């Protein structure tokens, strides 16, 4: 089983978001970068599947050199080799084209990634890759089991879930509870240093969107505290001020 796991390099979920250069650049000052939490679920499930059925895991990131510590972490968690497409991940369309180009070369049985990146939250790349390669794409996938080349998955739908069956190859956008996040152990960290990390140039250019500017939401007003013995006052506020009742 050859598995391609695509990861994003994103600010830690506790990051305070700010922008610089006249609100056109993300302010990375003091930011800790991590493997996207959803991508981390995909990677963890890939490692489990490799333990069950054998095979290999290639981790792929579209990013500049600064993403390499994040890629090394994925290698420490259990990927066998890594590919970095040396380019800014400008938009979903651009990233999907890079992934499809790598996937087209590699004969992967499955391509796993997170349901969305936690910076732009597009939730689009898996579907675009599936369509570019002409194979099924499913998201958000909550469980993934394999029996030979047949996969059984559950996909979250609004108000529940559905079970699907399909054959490899496919693309899946993963989310919990597909697997528990894995923390790299010392042996993994040591071996990650010598695992291959191949840097390739972007295969194809082309974007579909252009960023104009960023902005932060307006500051939140102060909270109105209501006494626990006076829920009637709260009901009046919800009715007359918030106008939600």
């Amino acid at each position, binding site marked *: 089983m050859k598995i391609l796991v695509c990861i994003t390099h994103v600010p830690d979920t506790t990051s305070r978001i700010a922008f610089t250069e006249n609100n056109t650049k993300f302010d990375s000052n003091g930011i800790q970068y991590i493997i996207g939490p959803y991508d981390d679920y995909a990677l963890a499930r890939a490692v489990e599947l490799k333990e069950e059925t054998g095979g290999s895991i290639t981790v792929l990131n579209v990013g500049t050199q600064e993403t390499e510590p994040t890629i090394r972490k994925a290698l420490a968690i259990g990927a066998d080799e890594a590919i970095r497409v040396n380019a800014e991940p400008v938009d979903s369309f651009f990233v999907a084209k890079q992934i499809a180009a790598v996937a087209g070369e590699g004969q992967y049985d499955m391509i796993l990634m997170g349901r969305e990146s936690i910076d732009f*939250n597009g939730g689009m790349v898996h*579907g675009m890759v599936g369509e570019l390669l*002409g194979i099924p794409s499913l998201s958000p996938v909550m469980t993934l089991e394999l029996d030979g080349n047949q996969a059984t998955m559950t996909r*979250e*739908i*609004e108000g529940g*879930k559905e079970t699907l069956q399909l054959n490899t190859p496919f693309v899946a956008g993963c989310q919990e509870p597909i697997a528990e996040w894995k923390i790299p152990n010392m042996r993994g960290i040591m071996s990650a240093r010598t695992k291959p990390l191949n840097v390739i140039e972007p295969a194809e250019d082309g974007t579909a*969107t252009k960023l104009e500017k960023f902005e932060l*939401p307006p500051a939140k007003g102060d909270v109105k505290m209501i006494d626990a013995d006076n829920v009637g006052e709260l009901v009046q506020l919800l009715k007359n001020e918030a106008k939600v009742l």
Partner: protein
Amino acid sequence: MAILVFVESAEGKIKKSSLEAVGFAAAMEGDVTAIALGSEVDESELSSLGNYGASKVLHQSDERLNKGVIQAYSSVIAAAMESENADILVLANSALGNPVSARVAIKTDASLVSNVTELPDTSGEFTVKRSIYTGKAFATVSLTKTRKILAIKKNAIELKETGGSASVESFDSPLNDADFAASITSTDKTTGEILLPEAEIVVSGGRGLKGPENWGMIEDLAKELGAATGCSKPVSDMGWRPHHEHVGQTGVKVSPQLYVAIGISGAIQHLAGVNSSKNILVINKDPEAPFFKAADYGIVGDAFEVVPKLTEAIKAAK
């Protein structure tokens, strides 16, 4: 300008978020055609889309489309864009809409933006505002391709009724086996309940509730408010509530008119899922709970005492 709107239904009814998508397209002053798939949606529901601004509704009433088959849906929608000469597709952000629209974007060579929060600005380049960093910021982006797809965040616009009625036409785009390569073998779904991502009001409980047996008071309050119920990540991780109720960074992101958080401390990952709510009410016995800083209304008190009293007070105020 021809605009196609993909509408979803649940239990025969068009989803509110899809009505918003129709309203959004109408507000763009386009000629709005909606498309609905599957045989389970009521015909009267389809013609009533005119009330929100659609002039025509295409209906592919193929029962293989009663379930949300991602590849088949994207094939039909791309074909409809072609046949209607629609350069713009509008749909609601959803667990089905997003993966479908990604494939349509490749099929039709369109620019695609999700989580759209405002009407586009078409005075110069075609730009839209979208939420990013899980609601912690916004970006304005321009869509550079001729064809454009906008996936609208829920509750992004207010619904307006126009009193119009739409003509319904059957649509029959051919489908092949590859469109059904991923076969849905079963569906496990709550019925008769308000769907969490669609809800105007959400009542969520956290670890402060102490156990799943205490969810009755959350459900009572939700029922009184006409709300959906949600929960925090630990509650879903411990199996007290199903995963589709988990609100937060790695769960469902909601944007209701009112979010009520009961016994939830307000970790930044939970706030990421609720920060687009119009109003937030926090009930927590810990006055230092970080959630109060993100709230509009707060009560410091024991949920087991406050929540039943609040439910009674809401009932009395009706």
